[in-house]
């Protein structure tokens, strides 16, 4: 094994979220030796061509899939089945249609509580849920059912629902993918404010590069378009993290950043290294600039 960059290969120095040598395949290899370390408070976005395994990576961290090999740790604990330490917002289906908005937000308290305790603590739970509804700017909407709200409002409820349990990390799987462009931009700004405020750690999967740059403090590029010591037989290999960039966050968030020249240049770079099947970097040329970035390659991959 050969280690590069700043991280550790021996597992003694666990970061907040730490993945090492993670492989996952179905009928073909999807994730091919993923090494990833994420610090607390990071807004980590993941981009990559469709079908590269972004969602698979998220599902591994969520615990609905298990890796073929490799380890996943959150705060030093091995990741198991889905649990309250990892919150999740899906693109759809995060809300329960038979519950009102308030009841949906309250679930994080009511679900783990027994029937009798629920009755005595009801008032407390309602107050807490109402506080979170206020945070996502949906005061007074608590008595409605999810289907009576717009798509953007539904996602805000889903975020409130996840925040209530204060998860260590909030996982988001293309949460704004089904929204129209205006609502989407509004939700991006809203999420950033909330992130800044709550000091959350976010792991955000998207296929939209612009969204990834605008939101993230760190962008990961996941792609199967690369070459390594295993030669040119591309079929047998899965996606790796081919780019890992820290992003400067200005104090004030404005969508104007989307027209910034640096931003446009970075977009171009990522498009070519991650999204273009014809351009294949060698593993040793990957741009892994982020200070948390580390990588362990097998001898075969490194080609030495």
């Amino acid at each position: 094994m050969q280690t590069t960059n700043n991280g550790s290969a021996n597992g003694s120095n666990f970061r907040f979220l730490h993945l090492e040598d993670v492989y996952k395949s179905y009928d073909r290899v999807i994730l091919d030796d993923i090494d990833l370390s994420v610090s607390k408070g990071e807004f980590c976005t993941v981009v990559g061509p469709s079908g590269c395994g972004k969602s698979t990576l998220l599902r591994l961290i969520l615990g609905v899939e298990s890796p073929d090999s490799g380890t996943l740790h959150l705060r030093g604990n091995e990741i198991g089945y889905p649990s309250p330490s990892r919150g999740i917002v899906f693109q759809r289906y995060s809300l329960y249609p038979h519950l009102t908005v308030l009841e949906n937000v309250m679930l994080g308290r009511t679900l783990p509580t027994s029937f009798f305790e629920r009755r005595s603590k009801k008032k407390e739970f309602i107050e807490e849920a109402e506080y979170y509804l206020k945070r996502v700017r949906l005061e007074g909407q608590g008595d409605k059912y999810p289907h009576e709200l717009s798509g953007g409002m539904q996602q805000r409820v889903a975020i409130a629902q996840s925040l209530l349990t204060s998860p260590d990390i909030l996982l988001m799987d293309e949460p704004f993918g089904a929204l129209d462009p205006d609502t989407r931009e509004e939700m991006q700004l809203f999420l950033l404010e909330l992130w800044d405020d709550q000091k959350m750690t976010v792991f955000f999967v998207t296929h939209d590069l612009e969204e990834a740059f605008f939101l993230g403090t760190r962008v990961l590029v996941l792609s199967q378009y690369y070459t390594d010591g295993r030669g040119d037989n591309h079929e047998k290999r899965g996606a790796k993290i081919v780019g890992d960039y820290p992003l400067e966050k200005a104090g004030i968030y404005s969508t104007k950043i989307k027209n910034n020249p640096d931003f446009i240049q970075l977009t171009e770079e990522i498009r070519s290294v991650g999204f273009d099947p014809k351009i294949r970097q060698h593993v040793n040329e990957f741009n892994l600039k982020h200070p948390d970035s580390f990588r362990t390659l097998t001898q075969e991959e490194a080609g030495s």
Partner: protein
Amino acid sequence: MKNHNQVWGLHAQPSKKTNIILLLMPFVLLLAVYLTASHLRQQENQHDKLLPSATQIVDAVDRVAFTEDRRTGKFLLWSDTLSSLIRLVIGMAAAALVGLLLGLNMGVYPGFRSLSLSFITFFSMIPPLAILPIIFISFGVDEFAKIMLIFIGIFPMISRDIYLAVRKLPREQITKALTLGASSFAVTYRIILPQILPRLIDAIRLSLGAAWLFLIASEAIAAMDGLGYRIFLVRRYLAMDVIIPYVLWITLLGFLFDLILRTIINKRFTWYADNK
């Protein structure tokens, strides 16, 4: 463009009045055909029993519903209705409860699914009427056997319907509940079950017709009272003047049940009714 067409074609927009007229038309038509045919036969033979006239039917209804039976001292239609409904409701309730629990657990727990899905699918293919003799032999000819026939005929249908409904719920819902701290029990009975309840009511609505069939079949074979029993008893005397009102009464009961269940869905499960 103004659309005046109320009845014909793809773009028809029936007004409220037209709607009611159209809705009543087949009923009125059927009644007219019957009365005409009955009248023609009565003209030919006053003692015709096959198509009794309206007055004969009214007389018969008065006899069975509003006059005490000389032999038993009961009002036959009402005592028959009560006996039948008790059987139907108990059989249906048992089938609904067992069907719900089986379907729910098969949908949520893979191990339980492997254990029971194939068996229940196989079991549901048994025509209940074909095993009617077995049921009567093993459970006697009393109430229990009749309730069992309804139960055995209905619960596999409901189990399978509930199972399909549970499987159609997005998997994300279970994952989400787990991240909110739910136990498996809470996922099953507090997240999935409440969402399936309106579907259970729909399943009951759809299987009510079959339940009536099983009820009447069992009453026809061995009973001392009940709507089905009466129909098959008076059949011996070709008493169409009793059979026809009984059939109409059963139909009306079925229609009322359906209406009540539908109202419950619309009132109690607005989220389900709106999303349908």
